[in-house]
């Protein structure tokens, strides 16, 4: 049986090599990791954007630059038109012996207050000395969250590739040809899943290492990826089973992929009392498990609980769908 499963995997692997799909799987993580490396420092370091005129003096401009990105424009008119531009910039004008803050009017209260605080501090001003120290952490929560989302994206990609591969077999008539072979449906599906699983592992780990995710326990990531793969498998089998053409397959993926992207994003903003709404989704538990590993650095029990629930839910759904999958993936002669 295993020989036949591996034969399906090997055939798909050869086909993916021919289609350069494998090459893309190697290219994908570095590109996304590069995006993360370029943007995270900018996002984490963003404070407020200030616009001022030369008349406030080089000394104050220099001090303001310690707190924010400062643009110097020629006069008040240029400053006002800069403040009115699409991004959020706040103007500082010299006015007699003092200063005036120019707002667009649609900034958040926090942003406007930040400009006041920065100006006051740059002008010098407190009698209370402030010292600072840190706990030595180098990775921001944004970094961790992006790592979690990238890991989920990898699972989603694996599921989508499994689905598209099944649909392709249907379209090319390969599925029909398999009727006359000793291959069973379970072996066929296992073979498809195996390549998807190998790809998801490859993408998850290369992405996490290349993006410079915070030090993490690779064994824990492996466990969460293995358990979370049940959801990807389910999505891939379902879409592959119900779709007879790639156009229909994309419609199916559009729906299943929401579980990988929207569920974790919603869980970020969902009030605590409503979190139960996400419990039925295996991806929610996988997200929690990845979070425990990649953001909180939690011990094993806190990783295994959500990972186990996610796996259990995923397998339960796969088991409940077996009959349906059997009917839809009938090898016809």
């Amino acid at each position, binding site marked *: 049986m295993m020989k036949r499963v591996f034969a399906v995997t090997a055939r798909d692997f050869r086909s993916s090599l021919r289609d350069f799909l494998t090459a893309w799987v190697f290219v994908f993580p570095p590109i996304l990791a590069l995006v993360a490396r370029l943007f995270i420092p900018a996002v984490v370091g963003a404070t407020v954007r200030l616009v001022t005129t030369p008349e406030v003096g080089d000394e104050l401009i220099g001090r303001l630059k310690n707190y924010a990105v400062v643009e110097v424009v020629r006069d008040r008119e240029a400053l006002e038109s800069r403040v009115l531009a699409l*991004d959020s910039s706040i103007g500082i004008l010299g006015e007699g012996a003092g200063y005036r803050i120019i707002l667009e009017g649609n900034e958040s209260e926090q942003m406007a207050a930040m400009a006041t605080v920065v100006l006051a501090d740059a002008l010098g001003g407190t009698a209370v000395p*402030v010292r600072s*120290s840190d706990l030595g952490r180098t990775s921001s929560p944004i970094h961790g969250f992006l790592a979690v989302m990238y890991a989920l994206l990898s699972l989603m990609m694996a599921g989508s590739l499994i689905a598209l591969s099944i649909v392709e077999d249907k379209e090319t008539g390969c599925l029909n040809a398999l009727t006359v072979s000793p291959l069973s449906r379970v072996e066929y599906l296992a073979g498809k899943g195996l390549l998807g699983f190998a790809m998801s592992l490859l993408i998850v780990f290369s992405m996490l290492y290349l993006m410079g995710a915070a030090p993490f326990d690779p064994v824990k990531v492996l466990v969460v990826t293995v358990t979370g793969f049940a959801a990807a498998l389910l999505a891939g089998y379902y879409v592959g089973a119900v779709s007879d*053409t790639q156009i229909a397959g994309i419609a199916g993926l559009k729906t299943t992929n929401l579980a990988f992207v*929207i569920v974790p994003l919603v869980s970020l903003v969902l009030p605590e009392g409503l979190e139960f709404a996400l419990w039925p989704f295996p991806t929610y538990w996988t997200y929690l498990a990845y979070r425990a590993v990649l953001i909180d650095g939690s011990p094993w029990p806190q990783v295994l609980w959500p990972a186990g629930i996610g796996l259990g839910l995923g397998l339960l759904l796969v088991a409940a769908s077996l009959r349906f999958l059997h009917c839809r993936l009938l090898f016809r002669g």
Partner: protein
Amino acid sequence: MRDMTRRFLTLTVKDLKLLVRNHHLTIVVAVAILYALLVRFLIPGELSFEPNLVVWDQTAHGIVGRLYAEHARDSVVLVGSEKDYLAALETGNRIGLKVTGQELPAAIEVTFQGFESPRIRRVLEASLRAQVAAMLGQPTGFPTTSLRSADVKQPPFNLAMVPVLVLFEAVFLGMLLAAVLLYSEKEEQTLRAYRVSPGGIPEYLLARSVAMGLLGLVSAVVLTLLTVGAGINWPVVLAVVFLGSLVITLVTMVVANMFHGISQFFVAELILMVVLSLPLVSYFQPGLSLAPLRLLPTYPLVFALREAYFPTGSPAVMTTAVLQLLVTLGLAFPLAVLSFRRQLVVRDV
């Protein structure tokens, strides 16, 4: 010209029929309703933040600690020992404030997590100094001028998500779908047959983009009506979604034409989507404005949608977006025609 229009309309209708037959209309409407339910019932109007400041006031009367407890109870954790102070800092993304002195605060020590940039640290320190000064009766302030009407209110968080969802659901709709239609046409040799017909590449590309644009409009209208309601700037929303969808579909067609099948294109599509979604970072983090982001067509698009849904009196935002989309369309369309002519006609693939 009349023939060309007729061919274009026929192709558009053909694409729409294909999409409807494959349940895409149903799914687009269902997903829009799902998003609307999320916005209305699950995403809160206001985000509740966890306390992000840990205060350990060691002065005799604990004046700073008491003032924080009075003025910012929800955002502060008050502790009484070093052990509790460090333990509280372990949780979440918090910073610590250690106040020392006898009767009055003599010094403040701020404990950061470590990943904060020097600028962020200085702003946070400045903010803490200003808060303490205000509590001690020395408020800081400057005269302020607002260039627009002062009664502009920020939309609730759940509704502020609508432009983002419209971008993902309505504008990005053609990203994968247009490519799939292209590959199935290549596989079924429909494109080869089309080449010997009087139909040209411009009509073919335009029809595909318009079909995606129309489907995008359905999604945007359903999502908008069920969330923000009817009282919005419809011409701008419809124009931005339609033009945005046209641009995205054309870019997709150019990229998809470089690959041989959906499995290959799938990875490129994900990269394309991540790159085109980057302007959302500026949408949620207004202080961040990077020049490369501003060049992406999705940058003005998402801000124009926000202005159309929640006006702040900046019509130029919408005009700029429409103009930038038209310019991008003006560049993308000939590029797509050239790429198709080269690939399909010259290379016969």
